[in-house]
């Protein structure tokens, strides 16, 4: 909203008059606040490496903002999305966050969308008491005491780990697993946590390894896993090249062991990297119930409603539905906070989010409380058939009802 000099003068005179009448000057501000746009800062890695999620999220963000504004806004207040391209760079993300806090004076921030950036800015936002919702998976990003302003609308690493382990032990009913990670910090820590989880639940981890994702031949590790008696191979790596090499090696060995693990195994790039399409079968990657279709090819009704709304307006062919749905939900969470509390003050937005129980978002049904800011339900983290992508959704892996 732009103030003209005359409007500014009128507000100033009004404030002076109110002061002269014995009212506190602050009373003049709510009138302005009630009409000003709701400013949502959007920290998006729109370009550079790892930009695919933000590009998908952005489609949901823009669609949600346009839909709310077309319906008259939130109590007459328009949604104003202020986007900054952080390029996946934590330094740029810190600068953008400072700008959102001190210059843009955002009412809430959505993002960033990768954990490296989020680790750099979470404490900054906490100091400014900035309501923040993000989809990053690193567990330490959510700490209700240190960061009472930060909320996660996607699963954490622990929830991913639980879902993979439950699928292996309860649905595939395997007792012996091999756990393989890449040699990145993420791959090492995720594989270690996964091994501990399996052992805690009584499963036998017959082989564990961290492999350099650029290693051209995966035969040595696959042979060791087979010789150790592995009944399933759990993979924690973001490298699609490593995933594809593992699948090709399995096929070359004539082994039909299932792969279970990281969502990267369902990435579209793998289609071009596997030697034959059938090499990608019996691979189950982490997915979400809300964005998975059943044996009849049907999505959950609530998700289908979103897909119908998006039809012809938002492309889902080159992205994932959960990214679009997550972006939509983030904007809607801020809008609903202002709508229900009648305020865009940070304490009111945070208070509203803390009160949510089974909030029906499109990506998930979120529940937050002052002591739990991981809002995504673990039971909705499911395994998908990795090679079954269809307009950003996946088929449920076998064994789910």
């Amino acid at each position, binding site marked *: 909203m732009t103030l003209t000099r005359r409007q500014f003068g009128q507000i100033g005179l009004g404030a002076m008059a109110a002061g002269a009448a014995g009212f506190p000057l602050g009373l003049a501000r709510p009138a302005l606040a009630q009409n000003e746009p709701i400013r949502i800062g959007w920290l998006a890695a729109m370009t550079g490496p*790892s930009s695919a999620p933000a590009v998908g999220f952005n489609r949901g963000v823009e669609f949600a903002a346009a839909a709310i504004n077309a319906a008259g806004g939130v109590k007459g207040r328009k949604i104003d999305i202020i986007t900054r391209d952080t390029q996946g760079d934590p330094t740029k993300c810190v600068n953008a966050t400072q700008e959102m806090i001190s210059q843009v004076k955002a009412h809430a921030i959505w993002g960033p969308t990768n954990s490296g950036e989020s680790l750099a800015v979470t404490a900054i936002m906490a100091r400014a008491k900035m309501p923040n919702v993000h989809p990053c998976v690193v567990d330490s990003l959510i700490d209700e005491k240190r960061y009472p302003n930060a909320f996660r609308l996607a699963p954490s690493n622990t929830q991913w780990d639980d879902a993979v382990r439950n699928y292996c032990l309860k649905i595939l009913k395997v007792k012996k697993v091999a756990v393989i990670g890449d040699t990145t910090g993420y791959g090492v820590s995720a594989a270690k946590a996964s091994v501990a989880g399996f052992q805690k639940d009584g499963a036998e981890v017959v082989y564990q*390894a961290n492999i350099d994702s*650029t290693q051209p031949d995966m035969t040595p590790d696959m042979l060791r896993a087979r010789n150790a008696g592995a009944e399933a191979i759990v993979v924690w790596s973001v490298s699609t090249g490593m995933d594809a090499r593992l699948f090709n090696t399995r096929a070359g060995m004539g082994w039909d062991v299932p792969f279970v693990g990281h969502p990267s195994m369902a990435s579209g790039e793998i289609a071009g*990297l596997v030697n034959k399409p059938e090499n990608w079968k019996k691979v189950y990657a982490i997915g979400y119930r809300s964005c998975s279709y059943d044996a009849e090819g049907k999505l959950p009704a609530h998700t289908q409603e979103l897909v119908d709304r998006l039809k012809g307006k938002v492309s889902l062919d080159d992205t994932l539905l959960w990214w679009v749905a997550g972006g939509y939900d983030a904007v809607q969470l801020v809008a609903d906070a202002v709508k229900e509390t009648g305020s865009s003050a940070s304490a009111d937005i945070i208070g509203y989010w803390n009160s949510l129980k089974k909030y029906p978002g499109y990506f998930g049904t979120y529940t937050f409380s002052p002591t739990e800011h991981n809002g995504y339900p673990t039971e909705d983290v499911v395994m998908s058939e990795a090679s079954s992508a269809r307009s950003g959704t996946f088929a449920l892996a076998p064994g789910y009802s």
Partner: protein
Amino acid sequence: MLASILATGLAMGAVYALIGITYNTMFATSRVMSFTAGQLGMLGGVFGSLLMLQWGLPLIVALPLTLAACALVGVVTEFVAVRPVLKSLDQHLYVLTTLAVALIIQQITAIEWGTEPAPFPRLLEVGEGVWHEKYWLPVAACAVTIGGLEYLYRRTLLGHAFIAVAEDNFAARALGLPERNLRIGSYALAGAIGALAGFSGGQLLLAFFANGPLLNFYGFIPVALGGLGNNRGAVIGGLALGLFQQAANFTVGGIFSSVAVFVLFIVVLLAAPQGLFGAAASRRV
């Protein structure tokens, strides 16, 4: 297991050897260790995939275009990162300038090409199993390269001029040899050799922006093992490295195989600092 060690080990060893030769070719005329060598290998894979899979060009067109494109990158490296620091070689500023160019190449590739590995096409549709072309193509490319370089250096006037500049560039210039043009030529040649490494090893390494640092590291080892400037030493060092690395993958596995490779590298350098095939440096007294 033995067949797998031999097939993958020799193939990767040949790729490392070609990158080592790339280092040597640039070093010969400039006395600069250019850390763009690995990136040239990476670009060979990326250009190959781009030209053949995305643009649909046949091998006979795509290979020369890839070599030419990387030769151009080599020439640009000479202009941008090497020539400005030649007067102060003793300050080793080339480490910074060539690393900077390498980083620029990698970042541009990441932004324009993408950060996910892309497939590389089968080139000749020949062989299966351990005789798959992805295993023997790098070895063949390495053999052709070393043979071609031997012919160039020993049988042609141009090759003699290269060697003259490599031996003593001041004397070569005094004799009227176009030292600057020969240096540009050697960077173009190095670019083409680096590209051939990535192109012939593309089916193993895929077209992936992060292959550059990997090839930079593992391509440097044959140079150190074989002796700086010694192409035959680089080939033997590269093949030995590939075989040892693959054997370590089978015996100690994954992350420890890299440790084993570098332990061996350090041990060899402690025993023979000039490299296994390099002559001890003479010092004027």
